[in-house]
């Protein structure tokens, strides 16, 4: 047995240090490699003939393909927000406040975050699985062997699709959530149109929409870049691809929630 790797003979403090150092070094390595991927993406920008048609195709798949589920989820989110707000506040505050609570919670939080988490599962998993499978079946090697840049052919189209389409989807989600929330509020707590609109406008700031779009843009980057990176680095066959897919989705979701908190702290 190689004495360097045999930990049984090492003192406990050394083993403890190794146990801490290994994941830390692994994390730092991933940060470095992720940075290299970002650099490759910037270098690939001039190769617009390669990425542009592919980006259009990805936009169709991300945007049009996700529209139904995003709108459906936002609708349910708006309905639940309306019902719970009605349960909590009816009788205690003027009804027009509910218009503000429902619309602001959708625009500031539920719209972008639920859309982001949904797309982390839908397109994040897909990208990680696609790229991971391409990696372990040597398709990425084949692309490179043909003198083609994987960054411009595979990564950039997917990431651009996320950056363009996720904000658009969030805007659709916000609109749907507010409309459905309005309709549910009318039927469950019998708020009038006038009260709802007055409340929504009373506490609305134009920056709220920018905030929603900024969050959407950040989440669009997260749900594409992280899965693309993890999938691209997949190893060890089907098990490796499965692991990469799970890691991509979980990591994207965690980062979305972290960013959600950070952006709230910084921008609000």
């Amino acid at each position, binding site marked *: 047995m190689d004495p360097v790797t045999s930990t049984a003979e090492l003192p406990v403090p050394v083993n403890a240090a190794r146990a801490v150092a290994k994941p830390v070094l692994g994390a730092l390595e991933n940060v470095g490699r992720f940075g290299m991927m970002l650099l490759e993406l910037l270098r690939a920008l001039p190769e617009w003939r390669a990425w542009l048609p592919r980006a259009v195709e990805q936009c169709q798949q991300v945007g049009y393909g996700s529209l139904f589920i995003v709108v459906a989820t936002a609708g349910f989110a708006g309905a639940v927000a309306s019902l719970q707000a009605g349960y909590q506040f009816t009788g205690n505050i003027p009804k027009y406040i509910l218009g503000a609570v429902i619309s602001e919670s959708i625009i500031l939080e539920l719209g972008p975050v639920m859309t982001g988490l949904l797309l982390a599962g839908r397109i994040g998993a897909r990208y990680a699985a696609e790229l991971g499978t391409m990696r372990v079946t040597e398709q990425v*090697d084949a692309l490179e*062997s*043909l*003198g083609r840049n994987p960054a411009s052919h595979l990564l950039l189209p997917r990431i651009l699709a996320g950056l363009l389409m996720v904000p658009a989807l969030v805007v659709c989600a916000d609109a749907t959530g507010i409309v459905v929330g309005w309709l549910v509020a009318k039927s469950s707590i019998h708020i009038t149109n006038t009260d709802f609109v007055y409340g929504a406008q009373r506490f609305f700031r134009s920056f709220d929409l920018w905030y929603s779009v900024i969050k959407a843009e950040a989440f669009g980057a997260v749900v594409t870049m992280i899965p693309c990176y993890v999938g691209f680095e997949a190893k060890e066959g089907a098990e490796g691809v499965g692991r990469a897919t799970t890691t991509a989705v979980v990591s994207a979701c965690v980062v979305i929630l972290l960013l959600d908190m950070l952006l709230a702290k910084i921008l609000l």
Partner: protein
Amino acid sequence: MFGRHVVLDGVDFSVADGQTVALLGPSGSGKSVLLKHIIGLMRPDQGQVLVDGASVPDLSRKALAALRGRIGYAFQTGALFDSMSVYENIRLGITDEANYRDQEFCRERVSECLRLVNLGEDVARLMPAELSGGMRKRVGIARAIAGRPTYLLYDEPTSGLDPVNADAMDALIERLQSELHATSVVVSHDVRGSFRVADRIALLHNGRIRAVGTAEEFMAAKDSVVREFLERDVQLAAEA
């Protein structure tokens, strides 16, 4: 090295212009790894990889892309792009950008490549998932030759094929040699096929080239590792 695992350890290997060299060795001996070093998909920890006098690991991106345009690499399983049809896969092998954008040129070149690998034109509209293993390998070769490469690298072209199709693949490689005159390296563990297609044979063993020579020199070799490798193949042929 992969982690602490040494795969290639002091390989000294050269291929002259126009030659076909078969690189033999047991599974896991590093044959495919060596091939990937030639095209720059892997970088050596030490030593040199020279193609046309240029050190491959030291090439700029542009120069490496240009070199890859002159090398056709046929992967073991074909490595076809699942989301593209056979036509689009082969078309992607046309490495000259001007030709790649010329639709008429691409149609003609793809037809020609399919003919060269003995596949009908109707295969062009199929997706990789609809192809058999042998057809996938052929389409992989068609893609590798689409750019009229100066060099051809074959990674286990007959592995996974039945004897009839393996023979047909060897015949295809011979035919491509006579039509394209490309300098070729064929990685294989198929001794008989290698003897058929190659001008010289090299045996990779324990990370090094153990022996290099013509088929006749190989058959007459006294080296124990070479004899064991040859005798194992003869034994398998007898059992078949």
